[in-house]
């Protein structure tokens, strides 16, 4: 049952959490992805194994970590290892999901978190890959949680930091990336987008309540494919909102963001 009002961030986190399946592994960063993984663990995926690239394995997260290497990322965990252990687990094909973020994303799910403008004379320099390129290369299904607008969802990214489907069908495999891996879902404040099974182009799968298809078009710098069986995204349930607000992010670090 749904009665409570909710904000965009809560909508995105609850939606993302539902894609995480019980008994799987997920590599996360700080912020919304971590909140989604914590929520999934408490609501729909109690046996979800959370992995942090700096070495934390399966913590019982007491609070939101500030860094993917801070002590909360292995608080009462199964193992406090290192980057090599976590990344090679991804390389072997044992990590099912990963969350990524970036300044720009294109229709094939390629992500830029390195520079805006010319590489050698950047208008804006961003942090770079960190572990994102590794996750995007090795994890089976990668997801993004992001606010949708024209400056983020662009026809061409200025720099491909992390691989989506690159230039289209077959391109990942041609480049040497593991077959069967790649972008899975993009969860925004407007919609959930997947990727067309043949063309590998971003495809609107469900629209959030109160959002029109034209809102999505106006906030996307390219024309996404529209699924033939487009749905309305189910809103957060009372249980999800209660757990998110009271257990996952009681200080509203993430869900309080504007």
């Amino acid at each position, binding site marked *: 049952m749904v009665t409570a009002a909710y904000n965009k961030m809560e909508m995105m986190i609850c939606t993302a959490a539902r894609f995480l399946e019980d008994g799987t592994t997920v590599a996360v960063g700080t912020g919304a992805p971590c909140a989604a993984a914590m929520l999934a663990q408490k609501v729909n995926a109690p046996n979800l194994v959370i992995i942090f690239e700096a070495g934390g394995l399966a913590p019982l997260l007491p609070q939101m970590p500030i860094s993917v290497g801070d002590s909360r990322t292995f608080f009462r965990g199964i193992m*406090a290892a*290192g980057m090599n252990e976590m990344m090679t687990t991804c390389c072997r094909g044992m990590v099912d999901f990963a969350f990524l973020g970036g300044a720009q994303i294109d229709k094939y799910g390629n992500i830029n978190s390195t520079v805006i403008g010319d590489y050698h004379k950047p208008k804006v320099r961003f942090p770079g*890959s960190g572990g994102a390129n590794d996750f995007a290369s090795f994890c089976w299904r990668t997801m993004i949680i992001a606010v949708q607008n024209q400056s983020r969802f662009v026809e061409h990214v200025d720099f491909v930091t992390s691989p989506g489907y690159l230039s289209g069908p077959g391109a990942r495999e041609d480049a040497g990336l593991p077959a069967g891996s790649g972008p899975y879902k993009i969860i925004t404040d407007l919609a959930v987008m997947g990727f067309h099974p043949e063309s590998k182009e971003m495809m609107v799968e469900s629209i959030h309540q109160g959002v029109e298809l034209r809102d999505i078009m106006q906030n996307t710098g390219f024309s996404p494919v529209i699924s033939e069986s487009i749905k309305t995204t189910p809103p957060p349930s009372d249980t999800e909102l209660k757990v998110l607000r009271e257990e996952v992010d009681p200080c509203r670090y993430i869900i309080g963001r504007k």
Partner: protein
Amino acid sequence: MNIIEEGRSPLFMDPDPDKAREFFRGKPRAMTDKRMTEKESVDKFIPDGCYLAIGGFGANRIPTAILHEILRARRRNLGFLGHTSTHDFQLLCAGNCLKKVDVAYIIGLEARGLSPNARRVMESGKIEVCEWTNYALCVRLRAAAEGVSFGIARSMLGTDTLKMSGAKVIECPFTGKHFVALPAVWPDVAVIHVHESDIYGNCHIRGISVADLELARAAKRVIITAERLVDSYAIRINPTRTVIPFYLVDAVVEVPFGSYPGNMAYEYFSDEEHLAQWLKAEKDPGEFQKFLDKYIYNVSSFEEYLELCGGIKKLKELRKLEALVDN
């Protein structure tokens, strides 16, 4: 070997393992007392122009005292290796210490935001950059530790990160598949903060080791800063816990609260207020210079810095936060 594609950025360090072996041949193995001060260790092992790598993870288990000393010594033209580097990179940018950087994650402080000054430095075009990923840098260090000239991974394939790296894509002689050859890197010096060390440099780390086990074995010289010095008996009674053995280590510096304002697992949490002050001060270059004078340049020791930041009262609060007591 068939090279399918190669990155355009220059390699800053020679990947020849025999040159590295020649260096390691001469590295002392004697178990001697390696204690020294922060200043002595910087004077001795971190000259202008050397290639430096910092242990830990950005603002977790970092050797802050040595970084401050590098700034006070006005070191210039350093090379740097940064898998996720945050406050460490922010400090080196603040001191204008850098010339060429192998990077995976820079400028940002993760959930805290981006460093305005590090961004100015990196957007100035004065720093040579070579792009990698966190795992790629880990593999490069691992290859160095193994004494081979390159490691292999599938990171960066198909991306601009690869184009702006110094990696090469090669064909596997067994399967014909494409892999990325990542050149070994032997940093001139690594600085790693640990929980406990004896006077010889035998170290214990609690919690995650990040890439420090590889780093300690790849670097030509290693400076250890330790929360506390322990008697060698504490090492010998439980050799299972030793993660860095003495013969890798060149200097041991005892620095209680040495990762402050960063997090030190099981000891103290990060000082988020102070890290936020950094980001605020950096917005205005003039203000930032005063901030740096106050907290680094006009300060004579790390103890004095800790006092300036709130001393024992503040540190007790951070201990409490770390232990999740009374929260």
